[in-house]
């Protein structure tokens, strides 16, 4: 024991420590290019996604190509890139050629038949790939040789029939038709009934259909494979469980919103926009903390019918300590029909920074879309130019006139463009974006097949907005709001009006995290105050929220909606243009009451994008809204 320890101590550092040895190429680095690559090869029908960590080989479900999240950089970075490319092309071809239709595989010995089929169709796809995309053939042949050498070096599994077949097939060249190649030393089981000849014939065929039959045949002969066969890693595995999931992608018939002991459905059916569910306070922090999938099921809403009139606590003014360092705002009490003066204490803080990579990743993933948005926004860019030598204009262009006169004197034809014109560009727009960071934004969007959290959609929206606005000179600021009770309303500054959109702001967007409650009213009042002080001709206030106003101390249901509505009215009275976007399908029940709004729900967004971004994006407001709406798509 001791000796072995000593020995180990004396042993040289493991090679693994050498730099470069463990270098990997991550899918994320190549994602953008590979996504385009797959799109091109599959005529737009497949997308790429990272498989679970640790996967070595690709897989496809006919909708997406799942690639390993990382590949070792062997023999070089370029080698890993080529391997990714080959994997992607392989999976595309597999999905495109109907290899994934497994229907005739038998129910009695499915595992064995499937394994045989995987082997045979793998060989078939290899050959087909080399023919279809000859540029990949040399690398494919190289990998096949490596595979064969590695297999021959491995003695243990050499006795299995499948293994022998695979070795024989790997030994055949890709290019000349397989049937013309003579192979010796075949296992006798293959020589009966001309199986081998049929196999070689099928490999040259244009259709994977005969392979299925052969697989059944071989499975029947062998009953079961001795060992699960280890297939070459560059090939996309057939994963019946993925294929079974296919209908799930097509028909969004997910189980409906969990209906627990809640009564919110009947309430909604009553058609009363004011009756909204209020969560019981105990549940909210739990949801805010629970970032796992469980959060989705934790969304148990309880009926908040017309709740009780103000409690005693709600009528107590803020203490001096609670007021310290805060901006104070009144709140509209719909029960009494009056304002409660100095009711809410709002404090500003800088938003915490996060990992900028998250933003860069969003940009990488959506590069074409961002590019498109930027181009669209460029079209909004007013030109401020002194245009000289115009056919018409506000002023005479003296230089042109002098020249024309001289030309005429000289007996030449004078120019006709004698005017100049100035196109005005006023920096007269200020946009304040107010983002809901309450705990409910940690919830998962139910009707979205990708199962994203609201906060993720919000984050993406902000990135798109900032990117698109970077081509314009509009001044804008982004604030997040959250808080617990009226005593501690928080405004987190994500981007100030005078801050540039750079690494710091990106970091803050990346660092957005769900907080506690949604007390919209005071946040709106605070930000509209800031916005109203901005020197601009047009001031826009945009609210991005998942909808329901809600706070611990009875700020919910009708009370919350009424106060929010009042706050929005106040903003408009101050001359601000307001609009709201919600990330919540249910919001259409009550949002119109507070405000005209746009839904950021998945379906609505893409429809809106089609309409707004391409055609009707004539005004700033609709442009901003369009940018934000695409984030759901």
């Amino acid at each position, binding site marked *: 024991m001791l000796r072995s320890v000593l020995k180990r101590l004396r042993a040289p550092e493991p090679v693994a420590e050498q730099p470069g040895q463990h270098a990997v190429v991550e899918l994320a680095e190549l994602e953008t290019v590979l996504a385009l690559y797959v799109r*091109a090869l599959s005529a737009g029908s497949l997308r790429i996604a990272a498989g679970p960590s640790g996967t070595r080989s690709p897989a496809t479900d006919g909708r997406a190509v799942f690639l390993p999240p990382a590949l070792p950089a062997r023999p070089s970075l370029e080698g890993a890139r080529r391997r990714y*490319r080959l994997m992607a092309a392989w999976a595309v071809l597999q999905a495109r050629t109907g290899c994934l239709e497994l229907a005739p595989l038998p129910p009695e010995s499915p595992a064995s038949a499937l394994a045989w089929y995987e082997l045979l169709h793998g060989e078939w796809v290899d050959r087909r790939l080399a023919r279809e995309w000859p540029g990949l053939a040399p690398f494919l042949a190289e990998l096949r040789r490596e595979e064969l050498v590695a297999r021959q070096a491995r003695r243990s599994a050499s006795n299995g029939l499948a293994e022998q077949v695979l070795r024989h097939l790997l030994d055949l060249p890709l290019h000349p038709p397989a049937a013309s190649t003579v192979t010796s030393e075949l296992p006798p089981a293959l020589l009966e009934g001309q199986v081998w000849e049929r196999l070689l014939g099928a490999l040259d065929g244009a259709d994977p259909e005969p392979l299925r039959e052969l697989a059944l045949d071989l499975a029947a002969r062998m009953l079961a494979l001795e060992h699960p066969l280890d297939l070459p890693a560059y090939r996309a595995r057939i994963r019946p469980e993925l294929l079974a999931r296919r209908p799930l992608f097509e028909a969004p018939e997910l189980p409906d919103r969990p209906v627990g002991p809640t009564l919110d459905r009947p309430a909604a059916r009553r058609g009363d926009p004011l009756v909204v569910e209020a969560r019981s306070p105990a549940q909210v922090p739990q949801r805010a903390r629970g970032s796992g999938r469980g959060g989705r099921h934790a969304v148990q809403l309880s009926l908040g019918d017309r709740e009780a009139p103000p409690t005693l606590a709600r009528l107590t003014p803020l203490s001096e300590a609670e007021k310290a360092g805060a901006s104070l705002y009144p709140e509209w009490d719909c029960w009494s029909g009056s304002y409660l003066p100095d009711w809410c204490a709002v404090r500003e803080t800088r938003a915490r920074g996060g990992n900028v990579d998250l933003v860069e990743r969003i940009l990488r993933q959506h590069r074409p879309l961002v*590019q498109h948005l930027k181009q669209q926004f460029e079209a909004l860019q007013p030109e401020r130019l002194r245009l000289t030598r115009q056919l018409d204009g506000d002023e005479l262009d003296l230089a042109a006139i002098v020249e024309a006169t001289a030309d005429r004197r000289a*007996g030449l034809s004078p120019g006709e463009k004698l005017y100049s014109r100035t196109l005005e560009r006023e920096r007269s727009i200020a946009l304040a974006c107010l983002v809901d960071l309450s705990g409910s934004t940690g919830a998962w969007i139910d009707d979205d097949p990708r199962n994203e959290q609201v906060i993720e959609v919000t984050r993406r929206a902000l990135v798109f907005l900032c990117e698109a606005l970077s081509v314009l000179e509009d001044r804008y600021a982004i604030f997040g709001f959250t808080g617990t009770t009226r005593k501690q309303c928080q405004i987190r500054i994500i981007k100030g009006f005078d801050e540039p959109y750079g690494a710091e702001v990106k970091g803050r967007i990346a660092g957005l995290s769900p907080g506690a409650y949604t007390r919209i009213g005071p946040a709106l009042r605070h930000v509209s105050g800031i916005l109203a002080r901005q020197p601009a001709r047009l001031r826009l206030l945009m609210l991005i929220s998942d909808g329901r106003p809600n706070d611990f101390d009875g700020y919910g249901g009708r009370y919350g909606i009424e106060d929010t509505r009042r706050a929005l009215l106040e903003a408009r009275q101050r001359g601000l243009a307001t609009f709201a976007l919600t990330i919540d399908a249910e919001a259409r029940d009550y949002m119109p009451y507070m405000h005209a709004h746009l839904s950021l729900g998945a379906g609505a967004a893409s429809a809106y994008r089609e309409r707004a971004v391409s055609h009707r*994006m004539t005004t700033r407001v609709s442009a901003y809204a369009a940018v934000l709406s695409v984030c759901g798509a």
Partner: protein
Amino acid sequence: MEPSVNARWVDAQVTEVSEEPFYLPVRDEVAVFEAAYARRLPVMLKGPTGVGKTRFLRYMAWRLGRPLVTVACHDDLTASDLLGRYLITGGETVWIDGPLTHAVRIGAICYLDEIVEARKDTTVVIHPLTDDRRRLRLEKTGELLVAPPEFMLVISYNPGYQSLTKNLKPSTRQRFVAIDFDFPPPDLEVEIVAHESGVDREMARRLVKLGGLIRNLRDAGLDEPASTRLLVYAGLLIHSGIAPRRACELAIAAPISDDPAVREAVLDLVATVFAE
């Protein structure tokens, strides 16, 4: 009018197509064009760049035996540039016909290429020529030209890359018979690439395959994907001895996009279709 000056000014745009240009019809466009010519209807050629709109028109001009007057429209093109203007030569003022006026006078096919690029007010001057009046009024000379039956107006229009601000007005576009052009079907495109560049069928087939793959990126960051023209250029380079991959890189990947990701993806596609 002084003929020499006039001739000098417009000659540049007038071509008599004396040799048959190579053109493979994709659908019924030849018959449609001939019918439009016979019925004196103006024609609009719609489609992305490099799919053969101009070639088609040269072919039709040859077929119909009419001279072709081509105007490449740009954003500074004015009505005078089309109709004509007074020039001063040696103390004398001379009226010079613009290409459109000239085409009307000689009964040519007048081709306004990329009409949307021209200033908005410019497009309006063609309106009276496009309806059944077929007249052209020259305000400055007070002349009223009536187009002879041989005169034909053709515009081209690329709906793809025009920005929002540059779009053809409905009042203009609805005066034309529109012939849609798109990338030719693969078999035909192979013929075209092989003929135009001189490469063999197999090489042409691969170029066309590459083109097809790249065109799948049309809405993913590529506004104008690899046109037939680009494939022909690549073929010409290959025919001159440049290695296929390098030729495609030079003639297709580089011109097609400045976006590094798109370019890289296109290079990957090149490497997929062509071995070293």
